[in-house]
């Protein structure tokens, strides 16, 4: 399976993602934002970081970069596109995913492990995954997912809510919502479920020495589903 990680100036999770993808057997290539073509891939990843210094709005400049046209074409033709953290922000700015990521409700940069519940397994990302709740890492200042009421209804009706913040038993409530995100949303799909954007970083938790290795479930499962 081939993957491509797009690097923008200011991306800082690109190499972590490269390590994670290779650990589980992906043949990964790094692609610079100024390129126009992406090598043939089964999966494209927009990594975390602070693309273009978060100027204007997080992800907005990356959303108009040279490479992004190819990402949009790939996504619209059904290709798998995964956006983590800043990658999620970029996906909303391009319009590939609805809504927007606002500044955290309590104005703090949050860097910690959280639990997220998998809400929908009828897709390539989570099909057959052995767990219901994953312990993943978050590190962001703008992770407060927001969209209109109509959009939220549409997300629910189309089963587009991928992961939600919860406790270790899968209980969702305000108490376990780190950033004020609407309906505890940590990640969403597009309608076709080939695009996934999420704030938590599975690539940061792929080894016990990194405080959790639940990211393994995510990547192991993903490559199996792509075979």
């Amino acid at each position, binding site marked *: 399976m081939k993957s491509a990680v797009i690097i923008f100036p200011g991306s800082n999770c690109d190499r972590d993602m490269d390590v994670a993808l290779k650990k589980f057997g992906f043949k990964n290539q790094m692609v610079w934002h100024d390129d126009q073509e992406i090598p043939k891939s089964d999966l494209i990843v927009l990594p975390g970081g602070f693309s273009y210094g978060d100027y204007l709005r997080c992800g*907005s400049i990356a959303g108009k970069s040279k490479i992004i046209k190819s990402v949009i074409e790939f996504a619209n033709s059904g290709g798998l596109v995964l956006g983590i953290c800043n990658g999620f922000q970029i996906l909303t700015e391009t319009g590939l995913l609805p809504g*927007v990521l606002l*500044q955290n*409700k309590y104005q703090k940069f949050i860097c910690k492990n959280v639990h997220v519940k998998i809400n929908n397994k009828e897709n390539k990302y989570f099909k057959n995954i052995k767990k219901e709740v994953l312990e993943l890492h978050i590190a962001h200042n703008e992770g407060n997912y927001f969209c209109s009421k109509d959009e939220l209804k549409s997300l629910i009706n189309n089963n587009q809510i991928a992961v939600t913040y919860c406790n270790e038993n899968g209980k969702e409530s305000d108490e376990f919502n780190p950033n004020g995100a609407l309906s505890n949303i940590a990640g969403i799909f597009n309608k076709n479920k080939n695009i996934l954007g999420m704030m938590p970083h599975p690539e940061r938790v792929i080894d016990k020495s990194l405080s959790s290795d639940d990211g393994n479930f995510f990547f192991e499962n993903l490559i199996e589903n792509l075979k």
Partner: protein
Amino acid sequence: MKVKVIVTLKDGVLDPQGKAIQQTLNGMSYSEVKEVRQGKYFDIEVNTSDEKNAKVKVEEMCKKLLANLVIEDYKIL
């Protein structure tokens, strides 16, 4: 010519920075301050003297990049 644009958050969208500014102003004894909403201001120099055309172009820029219409409104001054 110059075109000026103001981008503001739509009503109902959380603005933690505005809230912090409001609280600070209250703490500075400006107790009359009820709410602060922070926005963005752009000064755009365009190399045309055709005002109408320039504003049409800037409006396009607002919709495509300067504002995110999910949460923001724009005003061309």
